[in-house]
């Protein structure tokens, strides 16, 4: 795995964690992560199959109006405990 790929994976994880902690909608933080992972997987497949698979080109469509929602959330998993 080249340095660019390593950095992107590290960055993607940081985006996910920090995005969650700041209430950025999952689709916004995860979209960037998923796009790279798709790209990364196709790159690695291309390496192993010697370029036979076309990698997806193009920039990620950024979601218009990324929003940080700073608020308490309900935990649906434990919602019925002790009620």
């Amino acid at each position: 795995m080249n340095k660019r790929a390593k950095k992107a994976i590290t960055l993607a994880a940081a985006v996910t964690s920090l995005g969650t902690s700041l209430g950025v909608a999952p689709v916004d933080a995860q979209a960037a992560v998923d796009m790279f992972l798709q790209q990364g997987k196709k790159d690695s497949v291309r390496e192993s199959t010697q370029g036979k698979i076309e990698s997806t080109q193009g920039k990620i469509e950024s979601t218009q109006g990324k929003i940080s929602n700073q608020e308490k959330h309900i935990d649906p998993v434990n919602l019925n405990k002790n009620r």
Partner: protein
Amino acid sequence: MARGDTVMRIPARKTDLDGNAVFGFTCNQCLNCCHHKKIQVNPYEIARIAETLGITTTECIALYTTGNGSYLKFREDATCPFLDTRGCTIHAVRPLVCRLYPLSRHVSDTGHEWFSELQPQKNCTGIYLGQGSIRTYINEQNAEAYMQAADCYLNMLWKMMAMLENLVADVEEQPHGQHPDDAIGVHTEYSNWMDMDVVVDRYCQIRQTAFPDDIDEKMRMHLDALYFWINNA
């Protein structure tokens, strides 16, 4: 949000409110809103809690958070880990979302800020005053410093997301050889990047500067290290 993680947003009964919107609330410490919740925490908030508890941010993240430091780790009985019979044991350093409640704050990537008034918690004994303003309430809750810290990390997040988009678009190989990251020694496992103490410790070692006691200075160094990484790696 981490894969597999789920949250339910509390419905808002009013939204698109600015700081001058009429709002007032007196909490009567019923503690109902400390149950069955997911509480976001960012690196600044973790640092504040860690300092109060006399532990490192690494320990705080391990003991009290989930999602790689994104949420407080609630107990099996669905209570906040910092709740005891007397109430919040970290009230002076409680996270922003606890300070804002029953409000929520929204910030767009263009810097636009607005607020929502959330549906009241079932069995909440707090009193809605019908006077005052959101800005006054925020000041009463000493939320300003926490909002500023959140904005600092938000600006970082927007840059990270833009960088990630560019990495996908840029298909050129990185050159081999000595990498700028090595010079500042910020190669670290991804799980460490949100750990302020780990990052700042490395930062101070490389720059041969003292590890700060002041949390605002630590945050500044944390962000400096992160900015260097995303701009130079």
